[in-house]
C-alpha cells in the first residue's frame, strides 16, 4: 500500500472530503472527482472507502445530505458543509499546515543547522 505513490496519508481523507464539499455542495461521485481535480490526480481515493467516511462525517454533524438531481440528470445524494463542519475544516487546515510546515522544516534541516 505504501508502495503506491498516490496513497493517502492516514487521517487526511476526512480533511480532503470536507475541503471538497466546502467548495460547493456535491454528491459522492462529485467529491471523488473534485479531490482528484484539486490534487491534480496525485492522490487516489479508493471509491469504496469514500462512503463510510462521508457517512461518518454526516453522523458527526459536519455534513448534511439530501437527495437531488445531478448534472447527468440522475438522482444523487448531495452533501453540504454545516457550520460545525466549516469550523472543523478551518481547524484541520490549521493543524495540517502547522504539521506540514513542521515536517517540511524538519526535512529541510541540514546537519550544519543543528
Amino acid at each position, binding site marked *: 500500500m505504501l508502495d503506491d505513490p498516490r496513497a493517502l496519508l492516514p487521517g487526511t481523507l476526512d480533511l480532503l472530503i470536507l475541503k471538497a464539499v466546502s467548495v460547493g455542495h456535491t*454528491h*459522492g*461521485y*462529485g467529491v*471523488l472527482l473534485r479531490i482528484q481535480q484539486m490534487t491534480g490526480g496525485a492522490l487516489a481515493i*479508493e*471509491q*469504496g*472507502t469514500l*462512503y*463510510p467516511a462521508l*457517512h*461518518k462525517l*454526516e*453522523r458527526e454533524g459536519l455534513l448534511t445530505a439530501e437527495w437531488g438531481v*445531478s448534472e*447527468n440528470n*440522475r*438522482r*444523487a*445524494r448531495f452533501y453540504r458543509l454545516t457550520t460545525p463542519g466549516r469550523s472543523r475544516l478551518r481547524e484541520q487546515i490549521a493543524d495540517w499546515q502547522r504539521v506540514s510546515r513542521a515536517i517540511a522544516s524538519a526535512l529541510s534541516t541540514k546537519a550544519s543547522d543543528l
Partner: protein
Amino acid sequence: VIHPDDLDAEVRSHLAHRADDLEREGLSRTAAERQARLEFGGLEKHKDAVRDAEVRRGPGAWFTSMGRDLALATRRLRRARLFTMFSVVSLAVGVALPTTMYAFLRATIWADPAVDRPAELVVFTARGRYVTGSASEWRSAFSLPDVRDYVAAQNSLSAVAWQSWNNGIVALGQDGQSATPIGVSGRFFEVVGISPLLGRFIHPEDDRSGAPPVMVVSYHVWRTILGASRDAIGSVLHVKGEPFSVIGVAPVGFSGLDFGGPTRPMVWVPMSSAHVLSNAESLGRRDVGVLTLIGRMVPGADVARASAEAAAFGTELDREFPLRELSGQPQGSMARSWAATDYQSLRNAGIGRAAYASYVLLAIGGLVLVVACSNLANLSVARGTIRQPELVMRRALGATRGRLVRELLAESAIIALAGLAASVLLLRVLFVLCTIDLPVSNQNILSIVPVLDRHVLAYAAGAVVLALLMFGVEPAVQLTRTSIGTILPRGAGTLLPGTRRHRMLIRLQVAAAFALLVIASVTVHYSVSLSKDDSGVDLDQLAVGTVVFLPHEQFAATDRAQATETVLATLRATLGIERADAATGMPFGLTVTPLVQLSSPDRPAFRETTAFELSSTPGYFETVGVAIQRGRAFTAHDTAESAPVAILSAAAARAMFGSVDVIGRTIATRPLTGRTVTPPVITRTVVGVAGDTDVQSRGSRRSLLVHVPLTQTSAPFVTFVTRGRDPLIAASAIRMAVARALPGVAPSGVGPGVAMLAPAVPVTRVVGAATLVLGLTALGLSMIGLHGVLAYLLSVRRRELALRVALGATSRQVWWLSIREGLRPVIGGLTIGLLIGTFVRITVIGRLGLAVPALDLVMFLVVPMAFLAVAIAASAAPARRASRVDPSVVLRDA
C-alpha cells in the same frame, strides 16, 4: 442513521455517474457499468463496512439493527445456496426424526394415563392368590362378596369401583369383529374420572337388577364396528345373543385401566349384566377373585393409609371366611394379603421393560440429532473460516465483536427457523406414516396416533435450540475471537485455527453415526430374527387353547388328568389335526408356565436360578417341532409313580453343566409360589436335552427352561396344542372338544399359534424399520458432511502442501499425506463409535434378553468400510489436486 435503501441508492447513483463518465470516454454502456463496478470493488463488503461504522442509539435502534441483521443474513444465505440448503435439510431431518421417535413413544409407552388425577387413584392388589407360579401382586384378585363387605366398611376412599377380569372376547359385529366385554360397577367411570366422547357413561342406576341392558364402547369399537357414526348412540349390539343398547363412547386414549400393556377393543357393561361375561359363574363366590378394585382417595388421605386399611380388613375377612387352598398344592391357609398401590406406580411397573427399550429408542433418536448438529457445526465453521479474514477486517474498521457475533447468529437463527419449519412439514408426513393400528395379538391392538402436542413441539424446539447452540453460538464466538493481529500477517489461506476443531467434529460425527448404527442394528437384527421365525418352535401349523380348571374344588387332580385325556382323544380324532398334545403352557407367549428354582446336587457351583418348568405330554416335543438333541423324549412310562425325570433345554444344560452331555445328571426343582409354606424340592434325573426355543417372550432366550412330564406335576391349568394344516379350524376344534369334555368351562387364548404366541412380530418389524431408517439417515448425513468437510480441510492446507513440495516432497508423498490426513479423524471416530456402540449394544441385549448376537460382524466390517470409502473418496480429489500443486503459483498467490 443512513437507511439501508439510501445506502444502496447512493452506491448505485455513484456507479451510474462513474459509468456515465466511462461511457463518454468511449466504452459501451455495458462495459462502462462493468468497469464502474470493478473499480468500486466488492459492493456488499463496502456496505457492511459503512454499517459497521454506524453508531446506533435509542430504544428502537436495537430492533432496527436486528431487523437489518436478519435481512442481511437472508441475503448472504441466498448467495450461499448449497450451504443453506444442506444446513436446513440436515437440521430438518435431525429434528424431525428424533421428534417422531419421541412422539411415537408418547403415543405408546409414555402416554399419559387416560384417567383423571392418576395420583389420587388407588388400585388394590393381593399377593399370591393364584397358582401361576408368580409371586407378584395380583390385581384381579377380589371376589364380589369380599368387595361388597369392604366398600361398606372402608373410610379412606371417597368412592370405590370395580371391574371384572378382562379376559375373553365376544363377537359383536356382523363381520366377526370382536371385543373384550368388561363388567363395571355403577360408579366405575366416575372413579376413573373421564368424560365420554359421545353419549354418557354407565351410572349406578344402570347397575341395578332389572335395569335395561346398556353398553359403553371403546373408541376403537366405535370406529371399527359402529362406523364412527354420531348416530351410534342408541344402536344395539348383541353379546351372546342378548341385545345391549350403546349409551356412550369412551374417549380416544381410554381402553380400560391401562397397566402398561397394549389395549384391546373393549365394551363395558354394568355388573348387573355380568351374566354375559366369561367368568360370570365365579362372581358370586367368595373364594374366587375376578374383580379389580379401584378407588379415589379422600382429600388428605395417602396410599399407605388406604393400603393399611385394606390389609387390616383382608385379615378380618381371612378370620371370618378363610380361603381354601387350591387342590394339588401344598397345604396351608391362604391369606388375602390385601394392599393398595397408587395407579401411577403400578402402571410404571407394568411398563417396565418397555420403558428401558424406550430410552434406547430415544437415545438412538438423540444420536441422529447429534450427527445432524455436528454436520451443521462443521459446515458453519467451514463457512465461517472462509469469512474470517473479512470478519477480522471489519472488526478493524470499527465493528464490535458483539455485532459480528449477532450477525453470524442471525444467519444461524434463519437456518434454525427454516429448519424448524421444514421439520414440522416433515413431521406431519412422518406422523401420517406412523398413525397405525398394530395388531399385537389376535385380541390386542396397539393404536399408535402420534400427535403434535405441546410436549412434542417443546421437544422439537428443544432440539432446535440445542442445534442452534452447537452450530450457531459456539462457532460464532470462536470465529470472532481472533484479532486482526493474529490473522492478517499470515494472510488468508494459511492453516486456519478451524482445522483442529474440524477434526474433533468429524470424530464426534463419525463416532455418533457409527455407534448409532451398531445400536440400531440390534433392533434390525431382532426383527429380522423374529420374522425368520427361529423361535425354536414350529409355529405355523399350531393351534393352542388353554383351560383353567376353575372353580378349583370341582376338579381333583385325577379329574383334570381325565378331562385332559378326553379332550386330547377328541382332538386326535378330528379330521385335519395330525397331532394333539397338552402342556402347562408354551415355552413363550403363554405366561401360565410356572417358575421353579433350579439347582443341581451334581454341581454345587451352579447357583440356584429361576427357570421355567414346562410340563408336557410325551408327544409334545414332536407336535411343537422341538428336536430332542440327546437322550429321549418323555414316554407313557413316565408317570406320577415312576422316578421323576426332566429334559433340559440345550441352553439350560450348558448353563448348569457347561455342556449338553448331561444324560443321567440330577437336578433339583423347587416351585416358586407366593406362599409362606416352602414347597418340597423335587430331585429329577435328566433323560434328554431338547433344542433351544425362545423362553417367556418371543425373541428372548434369557431364561432357562426345564421340561418335565405332565403326569409328574400338578397344575390347575392345561394348554392344548395341535398340529394341522388349518390352525383356525383346529382352534375351533379345541373350543368344541373342551366344551364337550368340561361343560361350563371356557378355554381362553384359543387361536392359531402364530397369532397367540408370536404377536409381537409386526411391532418389532415397525420398530426395526424405524431404527434402521434412523441409522441410515445418520449414516447418510454424516457421509455427506464428511465429504464436504474433508474436501474443505485439504483445500485450506494447499499452501502448506505447496511448501512441502517446494521443500522436496514428491507428489506421491503429498497424496499419501492428504489421504492420511483425511482418514485420521475418521478412524478415530470409528474407534470411539465402535467402543461406545458395542458397550451399549451388549448392555441393551443383556437388559432386554434378546436372542441377538452381541457382536455383529457385518455391522463391524461393512459399515466402517463404507465410512472409510467415503473418507478416501472425499480426500482423493483434493489430495490429487494437492499432489499436483505448483508451489510457485500457490505461494505467490498467497
